């Protein structure tokens, strides 16, 4: 009998077409993977829905006044979070100012031949360790190292520059400045890591052409590399900002939990996340609902910021895929 190409027993040969069972298995697993992918989308909707449901009574009771009022009075059950929204955004902005500059500088330092590759690797490890240190440990360090260190500086600044709104109060202990500083240190690794990726994405030929023109390193970095990587750096800053918005424990320990709106760096303030962390464990039913409403507000703010950052990041990636 003449043998044909397909005439072999399934399971005997070294290579063989998949058996029916395997094809069914494959189809089954493909179906399962669709379910899995949906489940993560479902998870995020579930999170939104659960927090929304818990917040619903407070939303009905306080409405939009919750976002514009400035009181948090447990006894009168009158709750609103404008000072916390202000504190969240202000502290994150200040942190971004410090952490952003430091993070991008570190990224430049690591990618543009400032130090030997091995040293750069070590330095990167150190920055990554900064990200591994738990938030509460930063808080503890902030209380017992940073605040005593800052106090004389703040005192001098207040004494001579109290006409500048940033320095108009005395630093009595916890406050915006120590909180924002710790926050800056905490977002530094995030900003640095994403910026490093942004600089690495620049095609080698761009760098070669730049240095080939006879530029100095500073010129190359400021005139070519930073503008080229700018959208990636922007993504790094936005995502770092998103991280800062949601940070909780270090801020709960350092910001002073005071319900006020002030431009001053040395007066105590509050953030949405630290309000929740410090009030929730002892909250009654009505206050807990109000806190859930605050959680929803925080969720929406961080979502929008993170979404923005990720969209910029993806757009950047697509741009460079074209060049490479």
């Amino acid at each position: 009998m003449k043998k044909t190409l397909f005439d072999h027993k399934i399971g005997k040969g070294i290579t063989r077409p998949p058996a029916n069972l395997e094809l069914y298995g494959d189809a089954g697993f493909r179906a399962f993977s669709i379910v899995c992918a949906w489940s993560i989308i479902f998870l995020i909707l579930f999170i939104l829905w659960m927090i929304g449901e818990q917040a619903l009574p407070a939303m009905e009771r306080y409405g939009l006044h919750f976002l514009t009022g400035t009181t948090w009075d447990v006894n009168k059950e009158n709750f609103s979070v404008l000072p916390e929204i202000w504190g969240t955004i202000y502290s994150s902005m200040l942190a971004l100012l410090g952490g952003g500059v430091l993070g991008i500088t570190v990224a430049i330092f690591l990618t543009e031949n400032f130090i030997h590759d091995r040293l750069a690797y070590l330095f990167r490890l150190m920055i990554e360790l900064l990200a591994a240190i738990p938030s509460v440990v930063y808080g503890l360090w902030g209380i017992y190292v940073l605040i005593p260190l800052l106090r004389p500086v703040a005192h001098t600044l207040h004494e001579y520059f109290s006409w500048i709104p940033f320095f108009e109060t005395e630093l009595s202990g916890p406050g915006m400045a120590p909180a924002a500083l710790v926050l800056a240190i905490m977002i530094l690794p995030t900003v640095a890591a994403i910026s490093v990726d942004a600089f690495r994405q620049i095609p080698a030929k761009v760098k070669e052409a730049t240095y080939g023109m006879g530029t100095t390193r500073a010129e190359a970095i400021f005139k070519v590399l930073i503008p080229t990587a700018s959208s990636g750096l922007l993504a790094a800053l936005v995502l770092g900002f998103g991280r800062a918005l949601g940070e909780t424990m270090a801020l709960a320990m350092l910001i002073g939990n005071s319900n006020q709106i002030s431009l001053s760096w040395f007066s105590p303030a509050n953030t949405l996340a630290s309000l929740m962390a410090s009030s929730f464990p002892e909250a009654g039913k009505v206050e807990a609902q109000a806190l859930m409403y605050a959680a929803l507000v925080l969720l929406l703010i961080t979502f929008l910021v993170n979404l923005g950052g990720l969209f910029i990041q993806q757009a950047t990636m697509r741009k460079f895929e074209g060049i490479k």
Partner: protein
Amino acid sequence: MKDLKTPKQLKKEGWKGLNLQKEPFETRSLTNSAFTACAWALALLAAIPLFSIVAMLLKNGGSRLISAEFLSVLSDLPPAGFEAGGGIGPAIVGTLVMVGIASAIAIPLGILTAVSIKMLDSGSILARAAHFIAKVLTGFPSILAGVFVYAILVVHFGYSAVAGGVGLAVLMLPTVIIATEEALGQVPKRMTDAAFGMGCTRTQVMWKITLPTALPSIMTGVMLAVAGAAGESAPLLFTALFSNYYLSSLSEPTASLSVLIFNFSGMPFENQIELAWTASLVLVIIVLILNIIARAIGRKKF
């Protein structure tokens, strides 16, 4: 083109030629040096907090840990107000148990989800949406994970170790998914192509080639996620609360190192504050060990 002079003509007129050398005291050279110095200064500045934190941890937390009674510090119950001594035993056990629960939930689920996303056509809207949402979730504020688990579990069953574990799992899940996806993406295409060429189905390629090859990288990501979970405290405030005693069942409030540090850091008693430092040192050591393991596993690259 007539008015263009040849080099010979130019030389005759006294032209010395173009100087392509960088002059050391030109403005742009000076700017460059200044910039280099600034970059060095800022980079070193960024490294200072790490050294400061490590130094303070060793100085304030080390004395108790490196002493004859370190075993009792690691196993005793936390002290009340004016009491001397005491330890952080329940918190260590609680942290380990809750991280264990979180890992048991998040690691298999995360890896499976990442495999699933990679199984879909990478261009499909579903795959891209799932990937994007996992990414968005990595930037999710940790305290909201606590609030979420509070709403689904604590409201009905009360504070418990299980709820704490689930809270940490919600935080670990996106990290595990993204790490696994990246690891799977690193597997050389020629390996999977070869397998497809042998007539394997997608499922077979995924389970027999891609996943085993990517396993070291996946473990790295997983270890980093576990380390992150060990240091989390915000979600635990809402889910596990705190307890002064060793946990006897998984459905009761549970102590954890991070919440102990939070609680003790604000206390007026010297002894508690010292214990908070000791607990921080122990926590950082745990996190560091997990980080080192992660890096040790992940060294092998393609």
